[in-house]
Structure formats: structure tokens, C-alpha cells
């Protein structure tokens, strides 16, 4: 079942197209990474999906509620961590949480319990009575995450949840996100931290006004770069490149010093044949390992291929 479905969702601000025909389906229980450069329209997309602003055209359905028709139900059912935490400095951590919980129709007693539960979970319980104005950035961020969860939403929108956090706090938040996923919740994550997206996300969408690609991290890599094997040999590898190229299943071969970088369709099955072919012609193999393309390489490849498409109509 898809928790979020959009069909040609578009948002214009005057002549500027911020989001252009976004069509997307996100299954329940998925951590979906929404990646894109600054100004790509990610925040605008999140604002539409959380029923904060209306689309110019197109439709969206969030947890079975139609955008435009059932906006209050959408807002009641989702949690959101906005780009800036947005907390009341003069209120305590607990007061902040209880206030927002009540606005999410959480009864007073339960609001108290939920506030305690999440303050403890995020290691803020000892500071519950302190004014938020005295909190560090990391503490504010954790408190804002707690706020997004008080009403137990099934879908959570997290905008840069680990931005500005120290490594320990960032690790706490990432582990927390994994825990939320294990509970079957859907997480819509926007982040510039690509290793984090790689670690957390089941699906990744690369976006720049339009959706450029959406797939699992593995498929994104293989789709763009194929699957590769690095063969380290004794001596210069360039002499053995032609042998590798002669194999029918090899898509591409490059050599760098003592390494042959070979792109294959199915390394698991074809690596033994590749190695055998090289050994037969006299190559001395040091080791064989898969070529790992980072998500950053995937992202940059996609973004650089596509110019900014926010159209001035």
C-alpha cells in the first residue's frame, strides 16, 4: 500500500515553476530520501504534501486523504520537522511539547505522557523544565523531532534532521529514524547528507524542480554506472585491458596503473570467467573487489546531466 501518492503535482509562484509535474508513489514503511540542490523545490513539495500550501495543479493522496479536500486530516496524520526547529524560547521543553500535542488533538493526560516518553527517548528528560531559549542547536533539533512524533503519525516529514548536529547527536537521530522505520512508519527525508541518505533510505528520489530519478540506492548506482569489478594485477594493467574487452559480457574497461576497472552485467557470475581469462594470458592477479560508486557520484551525475528546469513561463 502506498502511503504517499502524487500525480503531476505542480506548484507555481507567479511565472516561476517550483515543482513541475511530480508523480511519485511511496510505499508504507519506507524511508524515502528526497535529494536535490538548494532551491530545487523540496521544501515546496513538503509543504504541499503536508497541506500547508495548495498545489497549482495535480493531485496528491497522503495516508488515504486527498490533498485539497481533506487537508485537516492530512495535517492530523503527519508529523513534520521543519527546516528550522521553530520552538518557543520562553517555554520549557515540556511546555513546548504539551502545547503542540494539544494542537494535534492529543488529550491533556496523554500529551503529558507522550512528552515524557519522547523526552526520555531523546535524552532530554533532565532538561524538561528548562527554557528552550537556553538549548543548544542539537537539543532544539531533538526536541523538534519529538514534537513531530507526539501524536504518533504514520508519516513523518523530516527536513534535514541531522543538520548542524554533532556526530553523537546525529547518530542518535539516525538510529531513531531506523527505529521509526521498524515500527512501519513512512519517513520522507530531505537531506544534503548523502552518506546519511545512503545509510537510511530504502528509496531515493533525486529532484530538481522535476523528479529526475527515483529508485533504491543500489539500482540508482547500477542504473547509472553498472556493476563493476576492480582487478589489481602485478605491473601495469593497461596491457591486459584488451583481453578483458574481448569478453562478450564486459561492458566497459578502463585501466589505472595496476588496476583494471571492468563494468559487468552480473559480476557474481562473470567475475570467475574474467579472472580466468586474465590468468590464461599471463596476468598475475593481486586481488579482485567490487567497484563501489558512492551516492554522491550518482547524485552529481544526475544533477549535472539535468540543467535547472524552473521555467519562466
Amino acid at each position, binding site marked *: 500500500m502506498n502511503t504517499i501518492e502524487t500525480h503531476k503535482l505542480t506548484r507555481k509562484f507567479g511565472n516561476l515553476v517550483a515543482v513541475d509535474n511530480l508523480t511519485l508513489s511511496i510505499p508504507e514503511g519506507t524511508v524515502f530520501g528526497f535529494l536535490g540542490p538548494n532551491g530545487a523545490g523540496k521544501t515546496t513539495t513538503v509543504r504541499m504534501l503536508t497541506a500547508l500550501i495548495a498545489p497549482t495543479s495535480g493531485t496528491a493522496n497522503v495516508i488515504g486523504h486527498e490533498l485539497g479536500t481533506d487537508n485537516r486530516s492530512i495535517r492530523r496524520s503527519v508529523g513534520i520537522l521543519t527546516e528550522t*526547529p521553530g520552538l518557543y524560547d520562553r*517555554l520549557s521543553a515540556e511546555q513546548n511539547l504539551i502545547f503542540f500535542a494539544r*494542537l494535534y488533538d492529543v488529550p491533556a493526560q496523554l500529551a503529558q505522557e507522550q512528552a515524557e516518553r519522547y523526552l526520555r527517548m531523546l535524552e532530554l528528560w533532565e532538561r524538561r523544565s528548562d527554557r528552550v531559549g537556553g538549548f543548544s542547536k542539537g537539543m532544539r533539533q531533538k526536541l523538534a523531532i519529538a514534537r513531530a512524533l507526539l501524536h504518533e503519525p504514520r508519516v513523518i516529514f523530516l527536513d534535514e534532521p541531522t543538520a548542524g548536529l554533532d556526530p553523537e547527536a546525529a547518530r542518535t537521530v539516525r538510529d531513531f529514524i531506523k527505529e521509526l522505520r521498524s515500527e512501519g512508519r513512512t519517513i520522507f527525508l530531505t537531506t544534503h547528507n548523502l552518506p546519511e541518505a545512503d545509510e537510511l533510505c530504502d528509496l531515493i528520489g533525486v529532484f530538481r524542480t522535476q523528479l529526475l530519478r527515483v529508485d533504491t540506492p543500489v539500482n540508482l548506482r547500477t542504473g547509472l554506472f553498472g556493476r563493476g569489478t576492480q582487478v589489481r594485477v602485478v605491473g601495469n594493467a593497461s596491457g591486459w585491458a584488451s583481453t578483458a574487452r574481448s569478453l562478450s559480457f564486459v561492458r566497459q574497461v578502463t585501466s589505472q596503473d595496476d588496476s583494471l576497472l571492468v563494468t559487468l552485467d552480473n559480476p557474481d557470475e562473470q567475475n570467475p570467467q574474467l579472472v580466468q581469462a586474465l590468468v590464461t594470458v599471463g596476468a598475475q592477479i593481486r586481488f579482485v573487489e567490487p567497484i563501489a560508486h558512492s551516492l554522491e557520484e550518482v547524485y552529481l551525475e544526475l544533477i549535472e546531466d539535468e540543467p535547472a528546469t524552473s521555467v519562466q513561463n
Partner: protein
Amino acid sequence: MDKILVILQKEWLEIRQQRGLMLGVLLPPLLFTLIPLGIIYLSGSLVSNGSLSSPGKSFPGPTFAGMTTAEQGQAVLGSQFSIFYVLLPVIITSIIASYSIVGEKTSKTLEPLLATPVRTWELLLSKCLAALIPGLMVTWVSGTLFVIGTAAFAISGRVFSAIVSPGWLVVFLLWTPLLGTVAIAAMLAISSRVNDPRSAQQLSVWIIVPFFAMFFGELAGLQVLGLGFTLSVVVLLLVLAVLSIWGASRLFQREVILTRWK
């Protein structure tokens, strides 16, 4: 209703925690009550001078007809200060509303607030009531003390009736909530364009300017706060309040706040 009460509680909690704001809310009514009562008391204490006890040249208007010089003096002085109760609701509500609305902008809490299921009219009503209720309470308490003090210090019933006139009572009871409402709506419009409560308050001074015309009218003896005039203005203020709330509600839409507020 629940959400309105929740927001009101939060607003008043925040107000109580801001010393500067509390001073701005409590000091003007204190001054507007003590100073006039002090002057009325002092002017009444001059009655022992025989020449002031005899009928003198009368100020224009039926209010002062037949009054002694002393009575006229006290009545005129007291009437000047009664106009302050026109200013109080505008000042107090503007101060509170500026902190309330601009404060949400500066702390960037508007978006998380709007992301909740709260309806915009609930939020708007809460913001209005959060400023209006304290403004009215403070105005009516200080005005009541002014009335009690005037009753105690007025040298005659005629003086009391001249100061706490029917026109003034209309102002005190009917103008104040309407003026407060208009001030809040104006502050909402101002707050959408500025990012600092003090800037918003500085701009809100222009709301008070027309009322100084009334003050000087009273000083010139034009009897501005006559019953007929004040009742006419009630109708005008009612229309103005409705229009200003309508305008404020158009400014206070989720989409407008998130995309057009500076």
C-alpha cells in the same frame, strides 16, 4: 474551542514571562489612573478658596451651566483625562499583539504551528483574544478605579456627572472593545511586513493619531464626547471592526503567511 483555549494559555504564559511587555501593559493604565485622580484630588482641595466657590464665567456647553468656578475647573481637568481611556485599549492591545504575532515570525514558530490541524480562524481568534482580553481588562479595571476615585474626589455630583458623562460611559464600555479589535487587525497587517515588535509598535502609533484630535477637541471645549457623537462613532467603529477583521482574516491564511509574509 479547545485549541483556542490552549493557544490562549500559551500566549498568556509567554506574556507573563516578558518583563518588558508586562511593564508596557501595566504601566500606562497605572499612570492614566493615578495622575488624573491626583490632579482631580488636588483641584478639589482648592475649594476652600471662597472666590472659587461662587458661580463664575461658565465654560461653553450645558455640562458646565450653573457650576461654580471650582466645579468647572475640576470638571474640565477631569474630562481631559477621560479621553485617555480611548487610547488605553489601542495602546495595550497593540503592544501585546505586536509581540504575539511578530514573535511567532522571529522565533519561526509559524510554520510548525500552521502544520498542526488548528484552523486559521481558530489561530486568528486566539491571537486577537490574547491581546484583546488583557487590554480590555486592564482598561476597565483602571477605568473603574478612575470612576471610583472621581466619585470620591469630585467636589459635587455635577462635577462627577461632567467627568463620568453618559458619552464617556459609551466610550468606556463600547468604544474600547471595538477600538481594541481595530488595533489588533491593524497590528496584524503591520506584523506581516515587519520582523521586530518594536518596529511594529512604532508603526502602530499612526492608529492613535486620530484620537489626539479628540483630545485637543476636549481641551478646546468642543465637548467631543457628547452622547450623540459617541453613539454615532459606535456604529462607525462597528463597521470598521468588521471590515478590519475581514481584512485581517484574508492576511491570516496559511498560504499567505508562508509565501507572502516577509
